[in-house]
């Protein structure tokens, strides 16, 4: 049996002086998606940030294609797309400019995903392409952040509450984005309190790794 694409072993994270979770293990393989669940304040965001290399866990190791992500450095981030609580959209630029420049800054040669027009159409922002992003509504900004996933074409998606501020119809249409990503062999780690329907997504209860419940 070959190693799973993404493997986490014995992970512990601390916030301030409080241990959020300890001894966490998780494996995700190509075409799999994991829904990390748990009540507020459990450390879901911290977990996701640690998994994509933004924050450093105090113990444990995270391996991508069998190698430690701290050793891979940029070779790992080149394969991860992260959508956090903040959209990462610059209000001064138009929706299309945001995507075009993101794809230039963040893709290595030969790894470009969809064009910005196609991606904007997919998330239903075609009409807003030339509007400054600061004039978009919260939900539209969120959709723009998700459109970045399509432009970048990275195998591992790390999504922190991707559906906040989205209307019910958009949640359905955009959760199918994750399904399409899985179908093409992509991996996804999702945290969401909003209900969404995605066949084949695996639940992961974070609470199992938290020793003390507050």
């Amino acid at each position, binding site marked *: 049996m070959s190693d799973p694409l993404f493997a986490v072993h014995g992970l512990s994270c601390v916030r301030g002086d409080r241990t959020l979770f300890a001894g966490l293990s998780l494996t995700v393989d190509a075409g799999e998606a994991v829904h990390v669940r748990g009540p507020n304040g459990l450390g879901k965001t911290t977990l996701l940030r640690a998994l994509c290399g933004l924050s450093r866990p105090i113990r444990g190791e995270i391996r991508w294609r069998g190698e430690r992500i701290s050793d891979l450095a940029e070779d790992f981030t080149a394969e991860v797309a992260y959508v956090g609580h903040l*959209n990462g959209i610059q209000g001064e630029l138009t929706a299309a400019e945001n995507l075009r420049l993101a794809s*230039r800054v963040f893709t290595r*040669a030969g790894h470009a995903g969809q064009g910005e027009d196609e991606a904007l159409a997919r998330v239903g922002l075609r009409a807003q392409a030339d509007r400054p992003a600061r004039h978009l509504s919260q939900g539209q900004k969120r959709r723009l952040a998700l459109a970045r996933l399509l432009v970048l074409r990275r195998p591992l998606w790390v999504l922190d509450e991707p559906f906040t501020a989205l209307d019910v119809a958009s949640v359905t249409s955009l959760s199918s984005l994750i399904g399409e990503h899985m179908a093409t062999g992509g991996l996804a780690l999702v945290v969401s309190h909003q209900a969404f329907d995605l066949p084949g997504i695996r639940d992961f209860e974070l609470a199992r790794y938290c020793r003390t419940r507050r």
Partner: protein
Amino acid sequence: MTGGVLGAMRAVFVRELLVFWRRSTEIMAGLVFFLIVTTLFPLAIGPERRELMLVAPGVLWVAALLATTLSLNHLFASDYQDGSLEQLLMSPYPLSAMVLAKIAAHWVLTGLPLALLSPLLAIQMALPTKAIGTLVGSLLMGTPTLTLIGAIPAALTLGVRGGGVLVSLLVLPLYTPVLIFGAEAVAASAGQGFASVAHLSLLGAFLALALSFAPWASSAALRVSLD
């Protein structure tokens, strides 16, 4: 591979220029400050040419330094708030290269206009015409050094309340050598001291030094701030 890094750096540079340009009131703040300070001095000291000439190099350089410090807060703050900085950390290229491109764009819109505007203000400060070339030259080498060094505390204090004051406090001691040699170079070519070449070469050395370590140090600081 290297072509990729340069392409990404260029994209960051273009993006920063676009963003800063559309947010022009912020980038103008430093320039306007520089203008106001150097205009107020002749009014306060009096129109006596000899006295003005004596303080001109110092005043022009101090004003340029403070204007640069003022604009430092805009270097990372808004990107930090909207999450673009977080995304920049997920870049497939070395973060220090991306940070260097960002600093370069910031300097082009803050330091460069300041250096280009300085001859006009130098005349107002009664600086001898022969020293104007040195003034522009020293500012062209000095202001990028200031922005590069300032990027480190600007990155370190992200998310800290009252970070702006902290940046000034942290950065001013580091700025003093640049200020001393910059003002000294101008004074020298105005005929008040040694030849200005020595001071200018030292400024060049400071710039080279800052270029080599500041992008690396500020990207490390960014990683700490965003952890």
